[in-house]
């Protein structure tokens, strides 16, 4: 099958959507499909052979932060050329509602279009204003995929219609095979994420840490991620600061080894998550997971069956749960076992098969993707008089 995938965000900036698209493309190529990914990228960036650059993304203030987006005449022309040259059986657009390549591709294409909705943004004012403009483009999508039940609910409320839920994929084997590192073992708690991004929840964990250290003084907290380390530990008493180890940005291999090594992986995120891929990665590596009870997290953890949940932003609840887990090896072993069984459904073998099933369902009996030729004026009038 010839598959075209549209990535709305810059290929050179790491992010959840980009990683998902990279893994999906590589999975499909391994299965023998022809895949081409259209993504915004700087001209100097080295790109994998299956990625086609759609030009440089422009930073614009959008939705409360600065987003790097692609729009305008030049990008639209590149999208058209890509569609024309590709002769795809199906195109898969990610985030079709972001004012970037996704939306442009939606406008420019006709034929079997699959779209994945990643975010679960609350309805923004811009979206309401843009609704009449978006609707004709979104109508062309033959199949919608939401990455979680939560994302599907947002989609149904905001845009109407329905979607199938297919979670993001993880290479379970990669995390499962990683070797633990002895210096990261023994009473350790793991945290991975941006240090200076409050929504990732490190401040909540820092508030809980004194109580955890009071009950179990041997505990160490391992933090992997970018940000200001001094500021992160500023709220801790000086004596406790040495129990926190910062590892900085880690490679994928080290991330897997870290998750293999820790006794408990804590995800104290306070909001803005629509899936929670890191929880799946932690479970794949066999780490017992303790996460805040966000909708998306609760769903990934099977409502608490595959990992423990604590009340969001409640540092005391987090401390109590962490102390309980650290002192109970049997419970940890149980969580490990359940997590390992639970993550099978997030493995690329399963997720990829589901996505291919969607492709096959929409291509059954349909013509291939083509550029949507705008009807000429005369044809328009012919139509109007009918």
């Amino acid at each position, binding site marked *: 099958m010839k598959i075209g995938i549209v990535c709305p965000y810059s290929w050179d900036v790491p992010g959840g959507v980009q990683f998902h698209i990279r893994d999906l493309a590589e999975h499909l190529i391994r299965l023998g499909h022809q895949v081409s990914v259209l993504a915004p990228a700087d001209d100097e960036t080295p790109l994998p052979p299956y990625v086609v650059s759609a030009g440089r993304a422009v930073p614009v203030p959008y939705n409360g932060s600065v987003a790097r987006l692609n729009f305008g005449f030049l990008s639209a022309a590149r999208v058209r050329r890509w569609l024309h040259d590709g002769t795809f059986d199906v195109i898969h657009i990610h985030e079709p509602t972001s004012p970037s390549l996704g939306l442009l591709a939606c406008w420019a294409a006709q034929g079997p279009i699959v779209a994945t909705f990643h975010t679960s943004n609350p309805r923004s004012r811009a979206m309401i204003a843009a609704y009449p403009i978006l609707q004709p483009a979104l109508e062309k999508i033959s199949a919608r995929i939401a990455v979680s039940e939560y994302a599907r609910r947002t989609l149904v409320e905001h845009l109407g219609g329905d979607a199938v839920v297919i979670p993001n994929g993880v290479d379970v084997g990669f995390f499962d095979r990683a070797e633990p590192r002895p210096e990261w073992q023994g009473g350790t708690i793991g945290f991975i994420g941006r240090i200076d991004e409050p929504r990732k929840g490190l401040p909540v964990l820092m508030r809980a840490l004194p109580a955890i250290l009071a009950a179990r003084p041997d505990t160490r907290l391992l933090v992997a991620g970018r940000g200001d380390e001094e500021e992160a530990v500023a709220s801790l008493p000086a004596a406790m600061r040495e129990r926190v180890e910062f590892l900085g940005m880690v490679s994928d291999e080290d991330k897997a080894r870290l998750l293999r090594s820790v006794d408990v992986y804590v995800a104290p995120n306070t909001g803005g998550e629509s899936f929670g891929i890191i929880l799946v990665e932690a479970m794949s590596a066999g780490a017992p997971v303790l996460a805040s009870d966000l909708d998306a997290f609760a769903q990934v953890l099977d409502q608490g069956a595959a990992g423990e949940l604590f009340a969001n932003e409640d540092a005391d609840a987090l401390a109590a749960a962490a102390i309980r887990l650290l002192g109970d090896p049997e419970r940890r072993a149980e969580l490990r076992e359940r997590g390992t069984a639970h993550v099978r459904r997030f493995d690329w073998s399963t997720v990829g098969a589901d996505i291919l099933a969607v492709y096959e*369902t929409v291509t059954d009996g349909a013509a291939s993707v083509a550029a949507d030729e705008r009807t000429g004026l005369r044809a328009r009038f012919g139509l*109007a008089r009918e």
Partner: protein
Amino acid sequence: MPPVIETLIWIAVAVVAIGMYLSWTAGRLDRLHTRIDAARAALDAQLLRRASVTQELATSGVLDPAASIVLYEAAHAARQAEEEHREVAESELSAALRAVFGETAQVEAVKEIPGGEEAASELAAAARRVPMARRFHNDAVRAARALRRHRKVRWFRLAGHAPFPLAFEMDDEPPVALADRPVS
């Protein structure tokens, strides 16, 4: 320029603009109808596939006679159903499949015999794709209905003679033992 001509020109411009807008809307509607047709064809294909695999399993002698008869009856009824009874017949096939493959042991038993592994995975794939295809179909139907209810479409009869699209409502819950992944 006399004011009358100026007014006429403006009216002509307005008429042309409205005409273009209407023709664009008609094109939109046309595309939605094409999408419904494709989605319906895909749904039909998945339903037929599910019924044929079920019938094959029922006649293969793999299952006990009672289960075979239940499945055969349901699959046969689903394939022969008239259009207006189709939703009920397909729902009954779903119920029959759930009754027979409600337990993992039954699925394991099927997998053990020669060729059983393939049959089971084929049935699982078919049972998983039916809800998918149905969701895509009903999503297209919803979009077309929303547009067709609009004033401009009704007043100018942009939909032509195309029948008002109907959603396909049925019970498509796959059997638990066959669904080895989250279904939602």
